[in-house]
């Protein structure tokens, strides 16, 4: 679901604006070789298993890992041989790496100071950034006294304070606990949507990638195996890894209390209490299928669908359903046989409210 349809569908990007890179990095016997292109305003997620080379790609973009071959141009400027400190690049590191001896304010002011701003000017700018992140009160706080979510926002403010033309985020949500993660993800999404230059984020979490990015680039063993809009990749996985990765039904809609009315049509009951634009997600394994309308079921969400396709993944069958709602459901081979599932067969799909997951868009 691209947030910027005008940039995502604008065809060939002018050669001068945005990111144009082919990154070839050798690390022992491992070789990373990926091409990345993005227009200003784009948010690209590098998605892949551990050891796929995602972080190496980020380090190469930041100048922390040397390119063995390839090229790196940002807004038409060749950065291939530019030192990290001279690149217009901001990085949010996985564990943030906030300087522990500096306050939140001085952490954010560090970049502008290094780039030549006076002390007072840098601090004033940093205070503005913290204010924008809702952290005005934490300005004098040392990183060890910040919560995970606050530290993440300080790290983002620190990276943005130098006005980078390329923002890199390495697993920006990985260090957070589940609850904080939801909140921070929504905030990060807003900040990324407002960011006018190119953002590249690395994650192994498909949900993070789909919520935060306009475009996914799936990397395995140092090579790109698939790229495109998150919805396209979710519908047409081309490797086992992506199929497992996007094992998630994700919808957008308007929340009102414990109900989210989906843009796609029906409403979904959730346990979360929200209002306004929201996402609802649930894994295919949470869906139970019935040939007859279930009567005694405790599931609050029930949709009448038809089987569009069946695919086996190991000992599981993934059923693609269309109808009131398009969704994927996982069931065992035995259950699929008992239900006599075949393309075109009508089924009732049920999902418990407790199995769904809603959060602000």
């Amino acid at each position, binding site marked *: 679901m691209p947030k910027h349809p005008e940039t995502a569908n604008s065809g060939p990007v002018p050669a001068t604006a945005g990111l144009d890179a082919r990154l070839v990095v050798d690390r022992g016997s491992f070789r990373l070789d990926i091409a990345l292109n993005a227009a200003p305003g784009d948010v690209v997620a590098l998605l892949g298993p551990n050891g796929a080379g995602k972080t190496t790609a980020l380090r190469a973009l930041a100048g922390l890992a040397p390119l063995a071959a390839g090229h790196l141009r940002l807004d038409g400027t060749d950065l291939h041989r530019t030192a990290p400190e001279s690149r217009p690049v901001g*990085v949010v590191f996985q564990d943030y*790496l906030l*300087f522990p001896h500096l306050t939140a304010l001085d952490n954010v002011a*560090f*970049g502008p100071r*290094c780039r030549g701003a006076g002390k007072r000017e840098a601090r004033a700018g940093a205070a503005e950034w913290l204010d924008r992140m809702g952290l005005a009160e934490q300005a004098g706080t040392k990183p060890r006294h910040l919560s995970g979510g606050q530290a993440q926002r300080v790290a983002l403010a620190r*990276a943005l304070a130098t006005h980078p033309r390329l923002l890199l985020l390495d697993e920006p949500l990985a260090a957070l606990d589940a609850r904080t993660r939801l909140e921070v993800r929504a905030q990060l999404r807003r900040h990324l949507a407002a960011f006018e230059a190119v953002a590249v984020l690395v994650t192994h979490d498909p949900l993070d990638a789909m919520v935060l990015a306009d475009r996914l680039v799936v990397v395995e063993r140092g090579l790109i195996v698939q790229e495109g809009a998150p919805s396209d990749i979710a519908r047409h996985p081309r490797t086992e890894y992506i199929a497992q990765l996007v094992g998630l039904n994700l919808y957008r809609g308007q929340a009102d209390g414990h109900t989210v009315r989906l843009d796609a049509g029906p409403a979904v009951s959730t346990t979360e209490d929200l209002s306004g634009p929201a996402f609802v997600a649930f894994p295919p394994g949470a869906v139970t299928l019935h040939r007859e309308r279930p009567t005694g079921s405790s599931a609050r969400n029930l949709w009448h669908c038809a089987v569009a396709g069946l695919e086996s993944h190991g000992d599981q069958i993934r059923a693609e359903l269309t109808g009131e709602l398009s969704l994927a459901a996982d069931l065992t081979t035995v259950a699929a046989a008992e239900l006599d599932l075949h393309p075109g067969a009508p089924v009732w799909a049920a999902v418990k409210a407790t199995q769904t997951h809603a959060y602000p868009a």
Partner: protein
Amino acid sequence: MSTQAARKPRVRAPGPGVPLALLLPALLGLAFLLVPLLALLLRAPWRSLPEQLTSPEVWEALRLSLLCATTATALSLVVGVPLAWLLARTDFPGRGLVRALVTLPLVLPPVVGGVALLLALGRNGVVGQWLDAWFGITLPFTTAGVVLAETFVAMPFLVISVEGTLRAADPRYEEAAATLGASRFTAFRRVTLPLVAPGIAAGAVLAWARALGEFGATITFAGNFPGRTQTMPLAVYLALQNDPAAAIALSLVLLAVSVAVLAGLRDRWMRAV
């Protein structure tokens, strides 16, 4: 801290369960370390002590000791911290060898260090002859010579301590600083240095204590001239020949300084055990 304490294995109080074969040598070792210090306190001329300690010779030696040890520590910091950074953060051919050479003065008999310094910086030394010829600088048997002898012996302590701290510090902070526009030197000055400050302080105290007690290299390279090169340890040695009471008094002063240093470092060492 508390979680570390919780994970600590349970230690039994010494009692019937402790084998005598371990307990006896342990107590003997403890006594061996403590009795000399106790003897120093027992035999101290407490009555004449104020008089001993206020004599101008003692003050001269103490002043010179503190001055030289502090200057040697400062000198060690100025060149030792960058040296430690080089060893910890860069890779160059022969780094292992350089590291071994840096630590050599730790195990080298100080007298040999003094002889080596004479051969290098003496008036006819490898470097010293040029210093004399070009700048008229003579180092042996001067206060500056004391500082150099102490630096030679003490600096490795600082380098090793700081290098260890630097290795334990996350180098990615320097990378984070680089992405924010900091040159390598700025990153070192504004990020790394504050991060390893406790290690530098501990190394400096260690070096200072070593410099304060330095005897062999000093007497070999700088001689034993009261007011110029006669530091406390030298004064103690000299006093022992003709005025044992004075030697004890001087020793007490050095002991007090050592205890103070240990007290200053207790946070870092004693709790870390």
